[in-house]
């Protein structure tokens, strides 16, 4: 039994080490405290609401979020806007619908059940409007990038003047966290760009953090219930394991002293 655990922990340690050396090759990302990390991690409700504001006012002019619906904004574990607020948000967007009984397409105000309205009709339109680069859909973006939230958070603050010797084409910008350092998205954030309704100062750092939190939620809308259920499941398993361990001892004591 002792041997077993020694070898088992060795293998776990080895795989842990190889994972971390894997990560260590990349640039050091900016660090911040994320409220959703850890065993009991939860989203900061206010940060999600502010993050949504940054998304709508800044990002959404180019980036779609095709997997989110307006109803999600009012759901538990999300920004938790009230139903009325979410309805009002939805209604502020024009949604293309149809065909109606005359066979015509028409626009109407959005409803809770509608998906987030996309800034472009299709990928080609998005590319044409952005110098050939497609602004990726942001629904699962933090899960689709190696560094996750830390990468997005850093990237938003990573714009710099290019070092001497680096020449940039028109419409290409220098970002120290971007793979290859060249990015087609210009720096979007500047201090005071949005006016937060809750009075928080809209520094670049604050907006980056808020919008990244929002993106984490959009990628993992059930993160809070996952954490809660996980804690319960693991506590349950540990208690059951201990009980089974003692039953095992008891049963084996009929023939052996050691299991």
């Amino acid at each position: 039994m002792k041997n077993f655990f020694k070898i088992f922990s060795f293998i776990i340690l080895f795989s842990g080490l190889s994972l971390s050396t894997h990560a260590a090759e990349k640039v050091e990302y900016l660090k911040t405290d994320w409220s959703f990390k850890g065993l009991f991690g939860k989203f900061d409700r206010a940060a999600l609401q502010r993050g949504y504001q940054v998304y709508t006012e800044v990002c959404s002019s180019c980036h779609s979020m095709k997997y989110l619906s307006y109803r999600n904004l009012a759901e538990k574990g999300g920004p938790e806007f009230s139903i009325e607020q979410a309805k009002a948000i939805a209604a502020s967007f024009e949604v293309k619908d149809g065909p109606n009984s005359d066979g015509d397409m028409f626009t109407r105000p959005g409803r809770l059940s509608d998906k987030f309205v996309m800034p472009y009709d299709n990928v080609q339109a998005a590319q044409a409007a952005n110098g050939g680069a497609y602004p990726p859909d942001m629904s699962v973006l933090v899960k689709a990038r190696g560094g996750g939230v830390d990468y997005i958070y850093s990237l938003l603050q990573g714009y710099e003047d290019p070092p001497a010797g680096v020449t940039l084409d028109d419409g290409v910008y220098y970002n120290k966290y971007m793979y290859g350092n060249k990015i087609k998205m210009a720096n979007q954030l500047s201090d005071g760009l949005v006016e937060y309704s809750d009075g928080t100062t809209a520094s670049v750092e604050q907006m980056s953090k808020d919008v990244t939190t929002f993106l984490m939620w959009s990628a993992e809308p059930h993160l809070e219930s996952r954490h809660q259920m996980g804690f319960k499941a693991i506590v349950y398993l540990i208690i059951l394991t201990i009980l089974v361990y003692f039953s095992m001892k008891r049963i084996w004591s009929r023939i052996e002293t050691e299991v």
Partner: protein
Amino acid sequence: MSDHEYTPKSKFGKWFNDRLPLLTLANHLTDYPTPKNLNYWWTFGGILTFCLITQIVTGLVLAMHYIAHADMAFDSVEHIMRDVNYGWLIRYIHANGASMFFLAVYIHIFRSLFYGSYKAPREIIWIIGIIIYLLMMAAAFLGYVLPWGQMSFWGATVITNLFSAIPLVGEGIVTWLWGGYSVDNPTLTRFFTLHYLIPFLILGLVVLHIWALHVPGNNNPVGIDIKKPSKDTVPFHPYIVIKDGFALLMFMIVFAFFVFYTPNILGHADNYIEANPLVTPAHIVPEWYLLPFYAILRSVPDKLLGVVAMLSAILILAALPWLDTSKIRSAVFRPLYRQFYWILVADVLILGYVGAMPAEGLYLLVARVATAYYFLHFLVILPVLGWKEKTLPIPLSITEPILGGSPNLATAKNKESLNK
């Protein structure tokens, strides 16, 4: 199979059992005499059965919501993650379950290697096991393609292209596999069908694997043949059932930790980008459990020979009962083999590590040395060791070393050599 005639007590039981001996089978399974010195490395058989059933059950539910279509597969996975009740839980169990399945199967295989469980009279159990392992790799690869992310698409492209290395008919085979001239919708639909089929093939083989096991009975850490039933054995129920149950619960804690707290750590970020035939990812890497073989594939400069080397690396295991010439099963009594065993473990871990790295410079060199050593171990070291190694005296029975019967060890050794 059974050591004593079993007769059901009730009249109906007897009537039924005479027609379909299910009760005899149940009785055999509960009474099955098991060596009492089995350690925790032996619990992974039960754990693997649990993994297989978990994959089948979660897979069934996922298949109810998944859409196998190149334009809709990625969206349907996100639909499962967001809108299906507990869909995120089912999918994360299924995705991490594959990794846990391989973790358990590697421990199970390396346990066999250490204790010589593949040796006579258990060769058939071992070969069925290798077939199961091959099917597991096929199922895992096919399953990884289904979410239709970037790694799905490009992984499928790389692996199916391996068949083009076959002379003359290679290109034709690849086109036939794809159902077209590139990985596309026909590829996805057939991969889904096969991914659904293979687990049931595995299930059938698992039944054969256990059936074949129940003929000679379990090997054990001492590696000697034991009389069954005897004071060296315990009935499967309750002794082994509770011990397997305890180990399974410990395993489930690790499993739950991955599912609930780091569900994506074992996957690749690129697979959350929808498949795009026009954009190739910077590094195409398979899942962690295939990395050692990927390293072997890439360490050979020639494509065909690389594929041959990779396949041989797996198929060589099937020949293991004949490559290992030693009559002693357990490494406990083989001081030299024990050291080579741990070198092999390190070798495979190193192959796994370099498999995840770009195939260039030092990594490529290490991969080549490790690949060469892998084959050296099976083709040269094992056969030679069997002839040259001076093994330790083995006890007559399991109870003996516990009772400290050292005077008898010499006779045991003599008896063993007589048996040869």
